[in-house]
């Protein structure tokens, strides 16, 4: 029978992962539903006892460090700056309360579903992921970590230990909008997250917009972001051009077809910008 380990020390976890074949388990909210019809005889490394994966901390440089094992309930309950309002809104959309109690930020990223609710808001906060292995740690921007549908840059010997939100992105207001086929407990058709940084007179100095569930991995909208810089925040939504969404690659599936997704993405981006303009 395959092994199960729940180490208390990070170095023990990383030493274990240096051997091939270990499946990392945190909240389990994606893991178990994927194993209902077949239970592979796989070795499980349960990372929920590692203190390095816990807690939300303000760093000396003003950035935030979220342990990869932080649950969505902990995100909802944490005192976070207004830039993280979109992240908190997304946390409330991840499953129901019991899923939010167990599911983790790190699991959401490593599972790499195109419809993962956590990814667009973290992209809109310039998030970086911290990966550790027995031979050291490295950091990657989130956009270079999630490479496609269920595909990340994580090497098999690496553990995602934390998500870092840099200080400049926290000097902003944030929003998250999700469209599903019903109000609750639903997989997203389109998600949009955004943060805007502005001067005292309301001129946009930085814009970070991300769209999820419209390509194999959620993407930022760099052309729109560039067009927003220097505009008054009240005119943000008017800057949106159809070409700003050309990089989306929506698919047809049971939840929606591609033209609908593209149309809905434009609508949600506009709404997101309008909500950000109204935010103080």
């Amino acid at each position: 029978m395959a092994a199960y380990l729940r180490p208390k020390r990070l170095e023990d976890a990383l030493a274990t992962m240096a051997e091939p074949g270990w499946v990392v388990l945190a909240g389990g909210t994606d893991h178990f539903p994927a194993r209902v019809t077949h239970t592979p005889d796989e070795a499980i490394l349960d990372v929920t006892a590692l203190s390095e994966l816990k807690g939300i901390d303000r760093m000396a440089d003003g950035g935030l460090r979220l342990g990869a094992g932080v649950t969505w309930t902990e995100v909802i309950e944490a005192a976070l700056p207004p830039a993280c309002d979109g992240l908190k809104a997304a946390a409330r959309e991840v499953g129901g309360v019991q899923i939010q109690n167990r599911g983790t930020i790190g699991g959401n990223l490593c599972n790499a579903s195109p419809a993962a609710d956590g990814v667009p808001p973290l992209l809109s906060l310039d998030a970086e992921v911290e990966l550790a292995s027995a031979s050291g740690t490295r950091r990657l921007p989130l956009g270079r970590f999630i490479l496609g549908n269920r595909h990340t840059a994580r090497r098999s010997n690496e553990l995602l230990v934390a998500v870092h939100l840099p200080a400049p992105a926290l000097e902003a207001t944030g929003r998250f909008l999700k469209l599903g086929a019903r109000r609750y407990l639903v997989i997203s058709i389109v998600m949009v997250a955004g943060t805007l940084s502005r001067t005292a007179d309301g001129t946009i100095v930085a814009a970070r917009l991300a769209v999820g569930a419209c390509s194999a991995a959620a993407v930022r909208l760099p052309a729109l972001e560039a067009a927003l810089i220097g505009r008054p925040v009240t005119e943000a939504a008017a800057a949106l051009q159809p070409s700003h969404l050309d990089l989306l690659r929506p698919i047809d599936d049971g939840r929606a077809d591609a033209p609908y997704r593209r149309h809905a993405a434009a609508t949600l981006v506009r709404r997101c910008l309008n909500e950000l303009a109204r935010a103080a």
Partner: protein
Amino acid sequence: MPTVSMTVNGKQVSGEVEGRTLLVEFLRENLRLTGTHVGCDTSQCGACVVHIDGNSAKSCSMLAIQANGTKVTTIEGLANGDELHPMQAAFKEHHGLQCGFCTPGMVMSAVDLVKKKPKASEHEIREWLEGNICRCTGYHNIVKAIQHAQQTM
């Protein structure tokens, strides 16, 4: 086989389980606590909700061994002998169930809600129940029962 031990409904229990045994399987098959139901097996329906160290969780989506050392409360742990828990009494009085399949999970979620947010509005109650699916009642009487239990718990 690994041994797990935990406190279930105030009693220390332990058992040998195959490593991939889910918590809900351990509760139902090893401990014969069959009040916790399995509806969907995919962490959606909420029939399997129990409390783990005071927080509601879906026992179909964790291993028994992950609950090692924790305090677990199941629907069987709510009543005090023949005296129903106030939430159970409220479900009975307001007819918050029809077939009863979802009821154990519904009650466990509802107890967690009243503990965490004692003054939750009707809207907040409905939002909280998004992880508990009932196919009979239309939720109306479930919400009424929970509002009643907010006064009696």
